């Protein structure tokens, strides 16, 4: 479980996050939704420690991020896996080496077991015939899957995904969503997903927070989403004519 307590973050004069508090539950897919520029990515970067909040605290299963020593922080990071918007695979390494990278640095397994683990992770995401290919040689969807394989290589307790479906076709997006959900349940992880893709929200939204101009505007799950009276949320959710038609029907 990850607890966020009154997170504030500003860049120079602009306040990007205005006191966000919430709980991301274990074994669930927790979604942060909102328009582009609403502060979703900044919030996610604060949660994983890439950005330092101006005030407020983040608590990982009773461990306060702000009070952690460097060693504790390093240990915590070995428990995190992150899928970036652009996959962030290392260009100079093959897909297999990308997955092996965290294992080579942090795992105490011997070389043969590391290779087995990397193979298992790649097979798990359906990349069993692309071990030796480089990121530039595979499609966007395969890059996302390779990034998921890398993120789960060390059996993380927490998985963070920043817009996992950006740039993907609807069919591949669904496959990625299903993969993230399966992995969350399989590893009993706390998964936090940043998205503005409504298909993903409907598929995966076990716990959803809606961010509007840096503030938490609404919280609930995918069933509550279509019955909310919140005007700002409805404006976001029903922006697509497709969803408007569904609701009318």
């Amino acid at each position, binding site marked *: 479980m990850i607890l966020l307590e009154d997170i504030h973050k500003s860049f120079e004069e602009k306040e990007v996050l205005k006191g966000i508090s919430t709980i991301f539950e274990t074994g669930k897919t927790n979604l942060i939704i909102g328009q582009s520029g609403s502060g979703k990515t900044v919030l996610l970067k604060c949660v*994983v*420690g*890439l950005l330092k909040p101006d005030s407020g605290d983040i608590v990982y299963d009773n461990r306060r991020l702000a009070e952690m020593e460097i060693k504790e*922080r*390093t*240990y*915590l*990071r*070995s428990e*995190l*896996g*992150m899928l*970036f*918007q*652009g996959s*962030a*695979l*290392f*260009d100079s390494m093959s897909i297999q080496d990308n997955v092996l*990278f*965290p294992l*080579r*640095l*942090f795992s105490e397994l011997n070389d043969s077991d590391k290779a087995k683990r990397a193979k298992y992770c790649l097979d798990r995401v359906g990349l069993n015939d692309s071990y030796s290919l480089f990121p530039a040689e595979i499609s966007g969807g395969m890059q996302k899957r390779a990034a998921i394989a890398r993120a789960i290589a*060390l059996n993380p307790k927490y998985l*963070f995904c920043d817009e996992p479906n950006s740039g993907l076709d609807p069919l591949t997006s669904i496959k990625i969503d299903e993969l993230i959900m399966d992995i969350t349940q399989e590893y009993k992880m706390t998964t936090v997903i940043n998205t503005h893709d409504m298909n993903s929200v409907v598929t995966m939204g076990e716990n959803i927070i809606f961010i509007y101009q840096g503030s938490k505007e609404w919280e609930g799950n995918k069933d509550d989403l279509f019955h909310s009276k919140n005007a700002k949320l409805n404006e976001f959710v029903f922006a697509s004519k497709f969803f408007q038609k569904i609701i009318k029907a």
Partner: protein
Amino acid sequence: MNLLQHVGRYSLLMYQTFSVPQRWKLFLKQTWTEIGKLGADSLPITLIISLFMGAVMTMQVQLNIENPLLPSYTVGLVTRDTLLLEFCSSILCLILAGKVGSNIASEIGTMRISEQIDAMEIMGVNTANFIILPKIAGFVLFIPFLVVYSMFCGILGGYFVSLFTDLITPATYIYGIQYWFVPWYVYYSLIKSVFFAFIISSVSSYYGFYAYGGALDVGKASTNAVVNSSILILLFNVILTKILLT
């Protein structure tokens, strides 16, 4: 950002860079790769530049010292000393600042903007140590070989002039390059080059590491890396010459 802020941020980055590697095996492997990429790949450009500069220097010296009071072997002597004292360390490093500096800054800058560095940081990797230290170590370790290679190629360029033109005879040229040889000049050149290699690799890494935005910003970082490395090389050339030669 003002100069003082840059100096402070650069110092902090270097503090972070010079820590014990998390995995020695990986560090040594990466350093070996960087020796190849930054050092060995610079051999062809070093050969071409040094050979031609040595040849041109020999011709120019010959044409400028047509004085009956000066012995003809002066051509070889002046060519040798100019190559050893200045060209094979300072000028070569200024040229390499363009090649190696832009390579380092653009590589690290691209890693930054494509979130590869963020991905490493999430994993708990000391990114400065992991990415920058092998580059500095690789280039600093290889630069003495490049300098000695450049000295050899430069002197060879002058020899070709003596061989294929009638400006100077090969025997006189060879006598000149052996006459009054001061071994300290070689050491002086090597010491300077090690400092310059550190400047090129660390300053370029700094600009790449703090690049942000898009492709245009990586280009800017690369330009800044080359310009500032060159200025620092020129500055330290004066300081080191004062300390080591006077």
